[in-house]
Every structure is written in structure tokens, then in C-alpha cells.
């Protein structure tokens, strides 16, 4: 019997080539996209998913800032020490700090780029690393020890048996490998290749006049602190204890939120939520899940519409089968078998397409998303999705097909199908989805356009910047003069940080009224007298640094800092940074020194003539020659190192690369979804046109024009699109609002976006429909009437 079902299904598939091809094409495309989205979403959601990730948290710090709270993903050194020693619920507490001290590593003559981090040695236990070489007790036993991951060991030494081998950092500092562990997953926040001992940092405290030791330094937020609890339920308790410890020990205790100094963030939320637990990327994930749902729905709707529309063609077969003895059950089974066969065919084609497009997908997402159909959990998801869509889209048509009264066929009445209303509903749903997707694409692209083109408050065109090397910095004054003399360089300035994304912070500030008022965490930035003019920043009050020795006690605040401190007429007022008393000499207009996803925070600029980062304003002509000249100077001082530089414009774009990629992905998915929708619509109108062949023929004989015939066939869709637009607009307004929440600066949701999305849908639908309609209208009526 089953063999029989398959045979019939196969013959039917071949018989109705046109419709089946349309259905198959739509379904295959939809399944392909669905698999890609599932893989993408799964990868986003599986970030930091170590076996024991439920019990691991990152400690974020809740810091008072003016009247509000800022939550930072970093914490001070003592937190981990106290957590480990004084809180019994904590199994491990580990600090991590990325190692930026070295530019390059070498083994013999070979140079390597390696991502390194300082860690507490318990790191390897918390993240359950397997010891591949070395003795776990000897890992990071002193400041000269390092631990490598297996693939790094392979890369450096060609073997994982690397214990005892040495690596040179920046051609001077020698490190010895004391262990090799298995690689950390790429999709995680601890994906480093080489691990250094925290002793290196500890040693810098030896002659520190202010903080006695790393374990007592409550002032510098240098570490990402991870804690593993015995029981994840205890995170509130642990937080309370940590707050208590902090309040008791931290000399700047009042800096923190007094009732809840910390926030324990589950580590698998680190990529999709802010350090304070506010949704960030998760909204994008949700929106993509919605797109996934939409695309699959569209494909199912196509299938249901086309198969029920054509059901009348099978009235006869079903009736005869019933008369010669078929039970409803066996007919249902027959049609479901047909659907299953059809969907399986689409799935197989989709798998082929997935393999074919994986490289392109990887490029767009810039993620190493390998789609492995043998991966159990992934194939399980695919299978579930597959089963759901089969059930959804096969049961209804099967019931429709089997529900005719057998007499219909005998009476020769084949047009007993009037399921038009459901079909209209489904088509409307498709239009709703189309309008939503178009609105989504428009808003997302406008927002990306907005943030990349928004004036951040400084001029970033043609500004080249790089970190100076130590030897260069020792001759900073000379270097500055030499750089200025390079043809094409119009201005040179030194500053302490990147201006695009300055994540520096300190609470070490004071002003006249600060003892009564709340404390404030500011972003400090050391600059020279040329920085503000070079960046074309605006001073709202006061003046710039003059480059004289008294500037060392002068401060320039941004507007936000002035507002938060509450200082009236700030020029000339007292201000203190890092315990250094001075006066405010200027107020700079607020500019974005972080991603536009963040509000502008308080910033204090202080004077330091020769700090590390160089900013050069170059002319547009002959940039290449300018760079060569720069490189020559660099090589004079630092022959061993590559010259690495970047343009602010490029770095700025890079900061939004992820968002841009998301936007592109959304864009692609949207148009594919709309294309699949159109396929269905095309099939449906082709079918309607065929059904109405006779009516059209008669109308034409009676004198109807092509236009009138076209209108006859398209009119119904116009109304459906209007209804769809009314439904889609509020939903997409809500969803887009949700997505925009990720950004502190948002493009306005103009009414015309929604209207034009409706109009675009209308045009696409009309173009699809009218092809068939016009064809029907142009056809010779006599021929149609005769063949009927």
C-alpha cells in the first residue's frame, strides 16, 4: 500500500510540473534560508556555553554616576580574591585581563600574532581545560611562565609537547611554556591562545605609593572577573556578600551602588546583554527568529495555497477512490505521503544548497559557522522544524482533498471548491509578512546609515592614528617635529586613547561640591594642545591647553561631565583627577567617544604632551607617500616591528561592522522571503487565470479591454494588501522600536517608511499578478472559449 502511495505521489509530482516546480523552488529556498538562520541563531545563543556555564558568572560593577548607575563589565583586583577566600558558595574566582603589552611573539626567526591574556591559574579548572602537556600544579608557577592552547602550540612548535620551550615577546622578554591545554571554543569570551601569569601585574605594584598590592587595589577596574558557584541559585547571596565585603574594604566604597555593588551576569548572556543585563544583541536574535518563522510560514502558505487551489483537479480521483472502496484514512495517508515526499525532496535540495552557499554565508556573517548535519542537536532542530512544517502544511490540504462527496465527480461537477476565503486569509498573511519585512529592512538600513553618517562631534576624515613604540615615545618631541614635516601632514597630536572607542574609566575625581554630591566615574583622556583643533572639536566655554607647563594642572571637561558634577560657571573652578588638584579651563562640546549604542558619558581631558597615541591629519592627495614616510620614521626607531596604523574613518566603520552585517543578512533574507512569496502568488494567479479563462473570454467577446481584464484579476489582491498593511504597520512599528533600543541614538520611525513599505509591496504584488493577468487579457478569446 505504502509503495503505492509513493508511486502515485511521484506521478503527480511529474504531472503538474509548473505548479510543483514553483512550490518546490519556494520551499527549497525557504528551507535553505531557515537552516542558515537556525545555525546563526544557535551560534548566537550558544556563546560561552561551557558544560558548566550555568554556574559561571561574570561580575559586573554597579557604579554611581551622577544620579544614575553605570554598570561596567570589569571589576577591581580584590573582588576575585575575596570571593575565593571569604565566600563559601564560590567554587572558583578567576581574573582575566587581555595582554596588550606585546605586539609580537617569536620562536627562532618566526614571528606570530597571538591573543594572550593574564589569568589566575584556576582559570583552567573553571573552564575545564584538559591538560595536554605539562603538570597542572606547575602551570603559571611564576611571572615567566605561560600556558598555550593545543593549536597555538602546534602553530609555534609544530607539536603539543611544548613544555620547556621558550617564546620571545617583542624580541626581549623570554617566556617558558609550562603547560598545554585543549583549545577554548571560538564562540566564547575566553577564547585566548596564550595565558600569562598575573604575577606580572602583581609585580608592578612593588613600588606603588598608592595601592599596596594588586589584591588591595580597589581603584583600577582592570579585570574581568569570573566566578563559578557550586549552585547557580546562590548568585544573589554571593552578590550580597560581595557588596558587604566591598563596602567594608574599599576606600572609595561610596562609589558603588551601596545596596548592590555588583551584578552577576550568567556568562552565556555576555554577548547578547549589556554587562548590566540589559538586552543588546538579543533583540537582533529575536528578530531573526521572527524572520525564520516568517520565511517558513510563507513557504507553508505557498504549499497550502497551491495544493488546495488545485484540489479541484483531484476531485475526480478522490471521488472514484471513495466509490471503489477507499476509507478516508487511507486517502489522508495518501495525500500526507505526497506532502512528505515533496517536502523531503525540498529538504534534500536545500541541504545541497546549504553546502553550496556556506562559504558565502560565512563571509557575510564573518563567523566560522560550520554546518554539520551530523551534529546531533543541530539535525534534531532541523528535523523538528521539518516535521512541524510538514504537519502544518500537509494536514489541511489532505483534509480538504478527502472531504468531497463522491457524487461530485459522477455529476461531473469539478468546481465544488470554494475555499477562497481561507486562501485569501493566507495570502493576506503573506502580504503582512512582506510589509513587515520591507519595513524592517528600511528601518535597519536607515539606522545603520544614520549611525555611520551621524556627526560624532569631531572631524574624523583623513585622520590617521597609531600607537607609538616605547623607543619612539622616548623621543616624542623630536618625533612630533619630524611627523609634522612630512609632506601631506597638516597637524600632529598625541593623546592617550583611541577616540573612536575610549573605554578607559576612573572614579578618582573630585570637585568642590563632590563631597556632598554623589561620586562620578569619568572617562579620562590625556591630550596635548593640538588635539582639540586637529579633531575640530568645539569649545563651548573657556580655552584649549596652551602647551605650557601650567597646563598640567588644567582640565577640560565635556558638557556631560559639567552637568553631572553640577558645577555652575565651571571655568576657573577647582577640579581633581588622580589626586592632582587643578582648575577647569574649558568645556568641550559633547562628542561620541564610544559606539552610538551608548550615551555620551562624562569625560575629563587632561594635559600630557607626549603620550602614546599619535593622531595625524593628512591631506587627501598622496596618502600613500605620506604613509611610506611615516613607516620610514617608524622603522628608524623600531626596526623589528610592523607599522600598524588605521584611519579613523575605517575604524569607525569597523565598529559598526557587526551591525552592518546583521543589516545585510536581514536584507538578503527579506528579499528572499518576498521572492518566495511572489512565487506563490504567481502560481496562484496563474491558476486563477486558468480558472477564469472562460469568463475572460466571454468578457472580451463582449468588449472588455486588456486593462479591464487585468483589473478583474488584480483587484482582489489590492484589497488584501491594504488589509495587510493595516495589520503589519503596528506590529512592525513595535518590533523596530524593540530593535532600536540597542542604540542610544535612533533614527526616527517616520510615517512615510510605513506607507512606502505598503506601496512597495503593492508594486511587487501587482507586478507578479499582472504578468498572468495581462497574458490572460491578451489571449485570443475565441480560442479560450473553444478549448473550454
Amino acid at each position, binding site marked *: *500500500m505504502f509503495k*503505492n502511495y509513493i*508511486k*502515485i505521489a511521484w*506521478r*503527480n509530482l511529474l*504531472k503538474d510540473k509548473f505548479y510543483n516546480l514553483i512550490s518546490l523552488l519556494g520551499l527549497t529556498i525557504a528551507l535553505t534560508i531557515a537552516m542558515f538562520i537556525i545555525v546563526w541563531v544557535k551560534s548566537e545563543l550558544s556563546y560561552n556555553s561551557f558544560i558548566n556555564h550555568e554556574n559561571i558568572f561574570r561580575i559586573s560593577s554597579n557604579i554611581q554616576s551622577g544620579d544614575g548607575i553605570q554598570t561596567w563589565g570589569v571589576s577591581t583586583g580584590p573582588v576575585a580574591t575575596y570571593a575565593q577566600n571569604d565566600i563559601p558558595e564560590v567554587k572558583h574566582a578567576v581574573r582575566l585581563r587581555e595582554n596588550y603589552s606585546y605586539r609580537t611573539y617569536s620562536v627562532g626567526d618566526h614571528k606570530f600574532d597571538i591573543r594572550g591574556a593574564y589569568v589566575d591559574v584556576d582559570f583552567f579548572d573553571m573552564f575545564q581545560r584538559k591538560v595536554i602537556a605539562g603538570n597542572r600544579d606547575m602551570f603559571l608557577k611564576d611571572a615567566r611562565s605561560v600556558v598555550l592552547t593545543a593549536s597555538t602550540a602546534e602553530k609555534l612548535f609544530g607539536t603539543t609537547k611544548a613544555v620547556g620551550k621558550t617564546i620571545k615577546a617583542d624580541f626581549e622578554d623570554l617566556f617558558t611554556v609550562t603547560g598545554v591545554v585543549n583549545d577554548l571554543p571560538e564562540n566564547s569570551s575566553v577564547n585566548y591562545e596564550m595565558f600569562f601569569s598575573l604575577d606580572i601585574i602583581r609585580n608592578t605594584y612593588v613600588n606603588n605609593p598608592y595601592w599596596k598590592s594588586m589584591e588591595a587595589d580597589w581603584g583600577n577596574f582592570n579585570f574581568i572577573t569570573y566566578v563559578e558557584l557550586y549552585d547557580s541559585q546562590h548568585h544573589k547571596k554571593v552578590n550580597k556578600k560581595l557588596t558587604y565585603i566591598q563596602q567594608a574594604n574599599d576606600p572609595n566604597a561610596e562609589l558603588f551602588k551601596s545596596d548592590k555593588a555588583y551584578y552577576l551576569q550568567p556568562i552565556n548572556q555576555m554577548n547578547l546583554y549589556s554587562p548590566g543585563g540589559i538586552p543588546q544583541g538579543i533583540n537582533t536574535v529575536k528578530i531573526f527568529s521572527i524572520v525564520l518563522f516568517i520565511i517558513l510560514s510563507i513557504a507553508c502558505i505557498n504549499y497550502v495555497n497551491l495544493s488546495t487551489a488545485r484540489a479541484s483537479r483531484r476531485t*475526480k*480521483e478522490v*471521488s*472514484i*477512490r*471513495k*466509490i*471503489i*472502496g*477507499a*476509507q478516508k484514512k*487511507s486517502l489522508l495517508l495518501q495525500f500526507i505521503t505526497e506532502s512528505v515526499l515533496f517536502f523531503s525532496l525540498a529538504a534534500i535540495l536545500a541541504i545541497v544548497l546549504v553546502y553550496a552557499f556556506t562559504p558565502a554565508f560565512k563571509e557575510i556573517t564573518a563567523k566560522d559557522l560550520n554546518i554539520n548535519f551530523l551534529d546531533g542537536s543541530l539535525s534534531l532542530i532541523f528535523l523538528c522544524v521539518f516535521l512541524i512544517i510538514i504537519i502544518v502544511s500537509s494536514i489541511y490540504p489532505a483534509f480538504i482533498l478527502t472531504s468531497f462527496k*463522491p*457524487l461530485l*465527480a*459522477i455529476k*461531473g461537477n469539478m468546481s465544488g471548491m470554494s475555499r477562497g476565503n481561507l486562501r485569501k486569509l493566507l495570502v493576506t498573511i503573506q502580504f503582512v509578512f512582506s510589509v513587515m519585512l520591507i519595513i524592517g529592512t528600511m528601518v535597519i538600513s536607515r539606522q545603520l546609515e544614520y549611525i555611520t553618517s551621524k556627526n560624532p562631534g569631531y572631524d574624523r576624515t583623513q585622520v590617521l592614528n597609531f600607537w607609538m613604540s616605547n623607543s619612539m615615545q622616548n623621543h616624542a618631541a623630536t618625533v612630533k617635529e619630524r611627523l609634522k614635516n612630512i609632506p601631506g601632514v597638516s597637524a600632529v597630536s598625541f593623546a592617550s586613547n583611541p577616540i573612536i572607542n575610549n573605554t578607559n574609566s576612573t572614579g578618582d575625581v573630585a570637585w568642590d561640591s563632590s563631597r556632598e554630591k554623589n561620586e562620578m566615574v569619568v572617562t579620562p583622556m590625556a591630550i596635548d594642545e593640538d588635539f582639540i583643533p586637529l579633531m575640530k572639536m568645539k569649545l563651548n566655554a573657556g580655552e584649549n591647553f596652551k602647551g605650557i607647563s601650567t597646563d598640567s594642572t588644567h582640565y577640560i571637561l565635556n558638557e556631560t561631565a559639567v552637568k553631572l558634577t553640577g558645577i555652575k560657571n565651571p571655568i576657573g573652578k577647582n577640579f581633581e583627577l588622580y589626586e592632582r588638584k587643578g582648575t577647569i579651563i574649558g568645556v568641550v562640546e559633547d562628542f561620541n567617544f564610544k559606539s552610538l549604542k551608548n550615551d555620551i558619558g562624562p569625560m575629563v581631558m587632561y594635559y600630557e604632551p607626549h603620550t602614546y597615541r599619535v593622531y595625524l591629519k593628512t591631506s587627501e592627495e598622496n596618502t600613500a607617500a605620506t604613509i611610506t614616510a611615516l613607516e620610514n620614521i617608524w622603522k628608524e626607531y623600531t626596526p623589528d616591528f610592523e607599522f600598524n596604523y588605521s584611519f579613523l574613518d575605517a575604524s569607525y566603520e569597523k565598529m559598526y561592522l557587526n551591525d552592518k552585517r546583521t543589516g545585510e543578512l536581514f536584507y538578503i533574507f527579506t528579499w528572499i522571503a518576498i521572492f518566495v512569496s511572489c512565487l506563490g502568488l504567481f502560481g496562484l494567479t496563474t491558476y486563477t487565470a486558468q480558472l477564469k479563462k472562460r469568463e475572460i473570454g466571454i468578457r472580451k467577446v463582449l468588449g472588455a479591454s486588456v486593462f479591464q481584464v487585468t483589473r478583474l484579476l488584480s483587484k482582489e489582491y489590492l484589497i488584501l494588501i491594504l488589509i495587510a498593511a493595516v495589520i503589519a504597520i503596528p506590529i512592525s512599528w513595535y518590533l523596530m522600536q524593540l530593535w532600536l533600543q540597542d542604540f542610544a541614538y535612533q533614527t526616527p520611525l517616520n510615517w512615510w517608511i510605513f506607507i512606502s513599505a505598503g506601496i512597495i509591496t503593492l508594486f511587487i504584488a501587482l507586478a507578479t499578478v499582472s504578468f498572468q493577468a495581462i497574458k490572460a487579457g491578451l489571449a485570443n478569446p475565441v480560442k479560450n472559449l473553444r478549448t473550454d
Partner: protein
Amino acid sequence: MLLELQHIYKWVKQSGRNIFLLNDVSLQVQEGEFISIMGPSGSGKSTLLNVIGMLDGFQEGTYHFQEQPIHTLKEKHRSNLYKEYIGFVFQQYHLIDELTVYENIETPLLYKKVKSSERKALVSDMLDRFNIVGKKDLFPHQLSGGQQQLVGIARALISKPKVILADEPTGNLNSKQSEEIMQLFKQLNEEDNVTIIQVTHSETNAAYATKIINLLDGSITK
């Protein structure tokens, strides 16, 4: 008695008035009879046949098939009955286009869950008997009308029905083909004792029957 209709009324409402399709029809059919139903277009011939075949219902009257009161039976029970005892033959043959001759004949057996080996034997017998072995792998559209109707009859006979209901079985056939089909019916009736009830326009065909019923405006005349 194979079946008995008593005072059957069937009507449809059209613009508020009842139009009678069957008007007080009573009919008795014995096993082994060969009956022709005649009458002009719209006289209710096909409706009567459909009522007998349990494909259509009626508003008033009683219908007993092998002593079972059909008018009181549930739909499912009724369809089991007709599947068991009745074979249908249509003017338009109504073969399944997607199936070959062999498969068309085999399908009723599939629905009766007959075992594969037995099915093969039964279908082969039928093909032999109707002389269409050579055509078994052809699809309906590859056959002439007469051949299609042969397959239709073969399909109706495969499940060994007690009665065959034929609605103008030769309506689409030329006279030579018609005669062959009628000869076949006669043979089935006489040799296999299959009861046959056919609707026909043709006097010649009607004459094959042992009994002729004339219908006019839903009533049996005579």
C-alpha cells in the same frame, strides 16, 4: 430479495419550491435480475441509481438492502455495505488517470487489504478474462473508449460485487463497442449471476435486460 425501495421521495428546494427528483418510487430487485432504467433527460434515472448505490440520500421512504434498513444506517456503515456488495460503472469510465490499467483494477483490492499474492492472481484473472493482458501497463488516456470501459467494468467486478450499477455505460461508445459491453453484461448476469441495474437511453441496450423500468418526472410509469 436483494433490495427493496418503498415510497421514496427525494426533492431539492429551488427558489422556495420543492422540485421532486424522485416522487413515490417503489421498486423490488431480486438477485440475478438484469434491469434497465429508461426515461428522458431529467426524469431521475441517475438519481434513482445513485440512491440504490447509496451514494445519494433521500428525504422520505424506506430502503432495504439484503434486509438491512439503509435509511437508518450511519454513513460509515452504509459505505461499508456498498463497498462490499456494489460495483459501479460510469458513462465517463472514471478511471484514475495516474494509474495504469493493472493498477486501476488492483486499487479496490488494496482498499480491501487483500494480500499481495492474492491480488496479483485476481487481477491477472480479470485481465485474462477481459482480454486486456497486453494493455495492463498502459494509462487510461492511451486506450480507446471501449477499452476504458472494459477496464471500468473489470475494476467494478474485481471485488466480486452482488450488483453492478451502470450509469449509461455505453453512452460514450460507438455501436460496436456498445454491443460488446452489453454482451459482457449479459454474460455476467447469466453465468455469474451478477445482478445488473443499468441506466440507458438506448432501446437496443435496454432490451438486454430482463426487466425495464420507465421513469418520468421522478415517478415510475409503466
